[in-house]
């Protein structure tokens, strides 16, 4: 009997996760938890989206990026500029955010992904710096004074205003996050996902049996930039104020840490890591300005004690619990 329950859970784990996400606001209300918790969960959803893309790039294809905040920022500013500076529909902002990130990533991919290891890390680090400088100095981004962004409205109904704003935005963010998660889960269990992992494991072998490495690296770089861009747009309309430091090196490292904590070569790991590292600081409020130290410490401990990330520990625990370790899944 209990075996059957495990099996059902295993087979429908994504569906069950969707149900959990959908019912969380109701559960929170039951415990009379305030909007504050929902706002943390919204931010967790936004980070999840970026980290899923980052994990496709780093965990699966093995290409490091220390500058992903650049794409997150590019998406956020696209939305901000389209809606505020030009007064156009936020959906146009989303479209531009996706399009611009795809184009920029496509142009950058060719030269950048020729580099390997430390050199690639340096190049992406530089990329992040360049974008941060642009965000801080261009007139159109409002420079270091920041940029106000309109709230998101659907057919005249403003999503995040009045008393339901957190719940509305929670559902909006997480529907997109779940959709993108679903696509990514499909992707990694396919011919493309295998090719990405093959490139990670041995470029020379992948090359010699016919994988067009440059093409796959470019495509996954574009996808991960688009994920970051979508998250940036959602973030822009949620925070309604953009300032450059949100899209700097600290942000890139934060996103990277989420991936490492959750597990780089796992889509679930991305969501797990994003959730943990978004909630953790709220609990670690006491550390105030030392939070970056705590991040560093958490990162080091994670690499030492669970290099495959938390998601792997959990799936090992699950196999032990259900007694099917030998079969694998």
């Amino acid at each position, binding site marked *: 009997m209990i075996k059957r329950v495990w099996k059902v859970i295993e087979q429908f784990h994504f569906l069950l996760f969707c149900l959990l996400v959908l019912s969380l606001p109701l559960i929170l209300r039951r415990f009379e938890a305030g909007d504050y918790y929902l706002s943390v969960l919204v931010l967790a959803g936004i980070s999840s989206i970026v980290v899923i893309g980052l994990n496709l790039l780093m965990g699966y294809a093995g290409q490091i990026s220390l500058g992903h905040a650049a794409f997150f920022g590019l998406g956020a500013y696209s939305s901000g500029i389209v809606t505020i500076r030009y007064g156009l529909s936020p959906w146009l902002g989303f479209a531009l955010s996706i399009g611009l990130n795809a184009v920029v990533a496509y142009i950058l991919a060719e030269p950048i992904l020729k580099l390997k290891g430390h050199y690639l890390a340096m190049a992406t680090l530089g990329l992040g710096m360049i974008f941060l400088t642009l965000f801080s100095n261009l007139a159109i981004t409002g420079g270091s004074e920041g940029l106000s962004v309109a709230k998101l409205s659907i057919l005249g109904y403003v999503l995040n205003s009045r008393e339901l704003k957190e719940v509305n935005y929670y559902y909006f963010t997480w529907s997109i996050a779940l959709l993108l998660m679903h*696509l*990514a889960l*499909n*992707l990694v269990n*396919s*011919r*493309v*996902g*295998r*090719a990405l*992992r*093959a490139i*990670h*494991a*041995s470029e*020379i*072998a*992948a*090359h*010699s*049996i*016919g*994988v*067009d*490495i440059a093409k796959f690296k470019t*495509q996954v770089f574009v*996808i991960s930039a688009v994920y970051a861009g979508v998250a940036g747009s959602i973030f822009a309309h949620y925070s309604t104020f953009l300032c450059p430091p949100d899209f700097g090196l600290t942000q890139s490292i934060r996103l990277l840490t989420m991936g490492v904590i959750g597990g780089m*070569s796992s889509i679930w790991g991305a969501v797990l890591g994003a959730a943990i590292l978004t909630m953790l600081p709220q609990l670690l409020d006491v550390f105030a300005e030392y939070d970056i130290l705590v991040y560093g410490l958490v990162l080091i401990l994670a690499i030492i004690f669970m290099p495959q990330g938390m998601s792997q520990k959990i799936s090992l625990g699950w196999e032990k619990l259900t007694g099917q370790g030998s079969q*694998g899944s």
Partner: protein
Amino acid sequence: MLAAVEPLLEVRGLSKNFGGVQAIQDLSFIVKPKSIKGFIGPNGAGKTTVYNVISGIIPPTCGQIYFQGQKITGLKPYRIAELGLVRTFQNIQLFHTMTVLENVMMGRHIRSRSGFFASSLRLPAMRAEERRIREQALETLAFVGLQDKAQAAASSLPLGHQRLLEIARALATEPKLILLDEPAAGLNTRETSQLAELIFQIRNRGIALMIVEHDMELVMDVSDEIMVLEYGRKIAEDIPRNIQSDPKVIAAYLGEMETQSDAEAQEY
């Protein structure tokens, strides 16, 4: 009247310099369809370099390579693999983070087409293709005798099986020619004779092979023709029986033994 068989692979005047070192000098040879060509020579003769140039990993300094009449010099390795020319590696190059089955499924990569779009949406055509990839990979695994290991991690296999897996992955690409680089290195006698059997079975499928190997018994046993390389130059090319008695070949190998015993003598 015999019609001239068009060569499957034709190498013309191939040279490769690394700085001042001439690793390959003016090498020309052909591989006929469905034939097995042994490729031997003392250590450092340049055999692996020849493979690296043919498979497109490094460009030649000069010379031309034709595969099925088409010039492949300068093509990217993945394009050469698509045309039906694949190789294995002396230091085995498996996808160690993947299962045995997934490694062979990677061999089907160039014979399938689902991209990012179809894969992330799991379109019906993609799912059907995925099933086919899996079935064909399982068939290939059974062909080399590794079907029981399908779900094992590639890195967990013993060396002999890893070599077989690399061959299976190459076979899954539906090649016309496989370049094997020391397939018997590290294998015991029993495994080596099984490998010889497998090589014949591969040829019976209509696939030509070229084999770099130091196990002379194996090379003499399976090859239709053997080419000998010394210091990047071809010093002999003939049927195995003649190679065994070729004074130049004997000198090349005796020379190697002499320098080896010299080195040993110096140690004492």
